[in-house]
């Protein structure tokens, strides 16, 4: 704070920011100022107008005992107060000067920077004494503290202050984050214009003045037309000018006086409203009809009430924050719970769009996941979403990206501002594959400025002298291309939602890997079970078969024709059981043996498959066409089985005169998998059976038709393809033939 008050040479345009306003070297001439040695109370400096008040020239006064000037009994009281080292500020009323019975003065004293500064102002004819004023202040602030909302408290503050001070216009001037001012409450006489809802540029109250307002909450200019009275001598014993930061009579900057004159202000007072150690705003009081001097009792009242107002602000804004935060936490908890309940957690969002949008107080949203857009609410079109993602993607560095004006970043975004002027976005993965978006539509806001904010100050031609703006005519500005700002509560809620999602993803992944492990174990167990069971099942089967065969063969047993027939059936059934058991055994062995994944030429694989089918192909005189096939990563023996099964089926379920089978590869060289098709002109498969044909022991035809079979061929094909990481599908219409299409990993 002190640092920012240090004086610096005036070199730039913003000389208001640099003007050493705390050491103006003069005071406002309606009062008189004495600088005392804190130990001896001898006068070190005084304002040049002292003679007018005490009848002695500054030259005469400097070095003399200040207390000797004061009439009893105030002299002793003042002496006592000044002697007490803990006193920082002290004021007393109705103080009289020795030898002057007609005038009385209000006295303010404070110690600052090794000086005791005494300021005297002629007492005004106040209606109320100090005690009454204190009571009034206490009553008003008590009423204030019962109010919970800012609007009511603001209205009370301006009306009470105006009633007590009589200023023409009393307003609450609230700073925005960029230090522009906004008039949020006003009490005024009919004689002056309203400033309510006007905005003022930050340059109107420069940084240095704001710093001083934090230090000294009250600024008084009873008569803007005053002539300053210089301090004599100009500097203290340390050779530095007297620091008047805490003075009430401090001479204000000439630029400010010019500003007041441009605003037609004749007298003013302002009192700082400080919230959380920050200058939140001002109670600003002005008179346009004439000067207005406010005595220290009334200043006390205003200050007291402004403090009560700040505490209401603290409670109500703080309370609103808490309530808002609690609501958002509730929404987030609910949304995460819904996501957790859904099989696919994205569904938790898609099925609860209102929760998702409420979390970001957004008009619409979108989720980009697994290369797919999932718009939520009235979101921009997919093409526009892609553009938004393109704009934002390089900018998401931290946790959350927010902007209230995307078109400021990239003008192409202006095309869909009515849907998404503002964007909040985060990604949950380092690889940036999942994005969560919230959009806020454009809010066309009309800001009423007290004058053109783009011309806050005017330069004198060729000189580095700044003049404050002259025009305070209403100047309207439409703020376009903006959404509502993203509040701290919202960004906090979105960030917390993000960590919720990350947690959820981790939990889901853990669950999936646990399930996979269990699945793998149970598959292995099932395979071992099937293997062991089929072995053990074979033994009794063999017994049944052999004994039935022995019965049938032995001449001493006399069976009727029917009896012999039944024994034959037993033999046939045991053989079929053996077929089934062998298939099951084979199927389970596929899962028990390790896959040899080596580069395998499918042309050679198909040749081997055709070799094993040769006799049948020749018998049927089938037309087999094999296109040029790629190499794949796979187990040669198992792949031969795949083609053998598929080609055998193609011939088996075929009643055409010329049976045709075509084996081709789809030409997609760049992909990780190659697609192979085995097409026939056979009897085809009804759509309703397209899934079930892959089930073990599933048959679509009677055993005696199409040469029978165990019903495991396609099951084994599917298992082999899937163990290779591929997929197999069937495309078929009855009587039009069947195409089995499957994928196998290509050679990297």
């Amino acid at each position, binding site marked *: 704070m002190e640092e920012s008050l240090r004086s610096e040479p005036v070199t730039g345009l913003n000389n208001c920011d640099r003007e050493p306003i705390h050491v103006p070297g003069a005071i406002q001439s309606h009062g008189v100022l004495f600088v005392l040695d804190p130990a001896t109370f001898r006068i070190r400096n005084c304002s040049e107008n002292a003679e007018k008040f005490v009848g002695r020239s500054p030259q005469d006064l400097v070095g003399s005992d200040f207390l000797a000037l004061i009439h009893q009994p105030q002299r002793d009281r003042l002496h006592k107060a000044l002697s007490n080292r803990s006193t920082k500020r002290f004021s007393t009323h109705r103080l009289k000067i020795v030898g002057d019975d007609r005038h009385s003065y209000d006295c303010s004293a404070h110690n600052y920077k090794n000086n005791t500064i005494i300021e005297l102002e002629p007492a005004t004819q106040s209606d109320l004494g100090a005690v009454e004023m204190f009571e009034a202040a206490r009553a008003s602030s008590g009423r204030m503290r019962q109010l919970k909302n800012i609007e009511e408290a603001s209205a009370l503050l301006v009306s009470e202050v105006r009633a007590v001070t009589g200023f023409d216009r009393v307003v609450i001037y609230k700073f925005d984050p960029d230090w522009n001012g906004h008039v949020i409450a006003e009490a005024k006489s009919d004689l002056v214009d309203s400033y309510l809802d006007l905005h003022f540029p930050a340059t109107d109250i420069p940084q240095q003045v704001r710093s001083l307002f934090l230090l000294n909450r009250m600024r008084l200019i009873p008569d803007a037309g005053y002539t300053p009275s210089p301090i004599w001598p100009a500097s203290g014993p340390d050779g530095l000018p007297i620091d008047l930061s805490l003075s009430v009579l401090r001479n204000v900057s000439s630029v400010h006086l010019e500003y007041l004159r441009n605003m037609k202000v004749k007298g003013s007072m302002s009192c700082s409203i400080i919230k959380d150690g920050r200058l939140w705003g001002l109670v600003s009081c002005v008179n346009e009809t004439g000067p207005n001097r406010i005595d220290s009792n009334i200043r006390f009242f205003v200050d007291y009430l402004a403090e009560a107002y700040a505490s209401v602000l603290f409670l109500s804004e703080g309370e609103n924050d808490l309530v808002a935060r609690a609501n958002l936490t509730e929404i987030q908890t609910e949304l995460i719970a819904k996501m957790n309940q859904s099989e696919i957690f994205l569904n938790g969002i898609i099925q609860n769009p209102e929760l998702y949008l409420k979390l970001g107080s957004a008009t619409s949203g979108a989720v980009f996941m697994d290369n797919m857009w999932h718009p939520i609410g009235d979101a921009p079109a997919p093409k526009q979403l892609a553009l938004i993602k393109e704009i934002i993607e390089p900018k998401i560095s931290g946790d959350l990206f927010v902007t209230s004006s995307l078109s400021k970043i990239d003008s192409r975004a202006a095309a869909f501002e009515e849907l998404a002027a503002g964007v909040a976005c985060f990604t949950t993965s380092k690889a940036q594959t999942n994005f969560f978006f919230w959009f806020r539509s454009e809010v066309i806001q009309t800001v009423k400025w007290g004058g053109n904010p783009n011309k806050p100050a005017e330069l004198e031609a060729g000189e580095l002298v700044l003049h404050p703006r002259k025009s305070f005519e209403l100047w309207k500005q439409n703020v376009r291309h903006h959404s509502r700002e993203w509040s701290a509560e919202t960004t906090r809620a979105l960030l917390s939602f993000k960590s919720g999602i990350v947690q959820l993803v981790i939990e889901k992944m853990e669950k999936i890997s646990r399930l996979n492990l269990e699945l793998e174990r149970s598959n292995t167990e099932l395979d071992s079970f099937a293997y062991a069971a089929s*072995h053990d099942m074979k033994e009794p089967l*063999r017994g049944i078969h*052999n004994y039935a065969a*022995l019965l049938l063969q032995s001449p001493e047993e006399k069976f009727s024709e029917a009896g012999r027939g039944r024994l034959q059936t037993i033999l046939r059934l045991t053989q079929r059981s053996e077929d089934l058991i062998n298939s099951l055994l084979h199927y389970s062995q596929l899962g028990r043996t390790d896959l040899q994944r080596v580069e395998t030429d499918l042309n050679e694989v198909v040749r081997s498959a055709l070799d094993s089918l040769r006799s049948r192909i020749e018998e049927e005189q089938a037309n087999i066409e094999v296109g040029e096939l790629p190499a794949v990563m796979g187990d040669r023996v198992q792949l031969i089985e795949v083609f053998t099964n598929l080609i055998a089926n193609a011939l088996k379920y075929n009643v055409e005169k010329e049976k045709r089978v075509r084996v081709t590869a789809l030409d997609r060289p760049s992909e990780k998998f190659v697609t192979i098709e085995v097409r026939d002109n056979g009897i085809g498969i009804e759509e309703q059976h397209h899934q079930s044909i892959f089930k073990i022991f599933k048959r679509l035809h009677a055993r005696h038709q199409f040469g029978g079979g165990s019903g495991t061929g396609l099951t084994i094909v599917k298992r082999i393809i899937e163990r290779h990481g591929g997929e197999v599908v069937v495309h078929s219409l009855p009587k039009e033939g069947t195409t089995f299409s499957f994928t196998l990993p290509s050679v990297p």
Partner: protein
Amino acid sequence: MPGNSRRMILIVEDSEEDFDVLSLVFQRKGITNPLRRLSVGDEVIPFLRELKSAGEPLPGLIILDLNLIGIDGREVLKRIKAEKDFKAIPVAVYSTSSNARDIESCYLNGANSYSVKPVEFAKLEDFVESIKKFWLTHVVLPT
């Protein structure tokens, strides 16, 4: 070879029915060799040792099932082939298992043949016929 038909055949088989049918088919095929059956894997080596110590002739052929009560046929095979006195005896593995791993490991452990038990009776007859023709007729067995 003429003397083969007098050699004892040891059948290691835990299934009563399989043994019953097998011996019946042996009989039908006119195989007159004495048959000895053991159903517990652990009994095989003590049985052979007893023959040896009593100075009696060892089996001319062992027909060995793999799934047995007690130690299984794979282990019995290893033990037979690990003993100097017995490793010369031909062992014909006769098992339900068509598992490639079983087949390979049996040969590696010194099996002299490996046959998969058929369910079809005719095939069983074929098998026995082959034993008769090969092991009991053409082959010169160790003494």
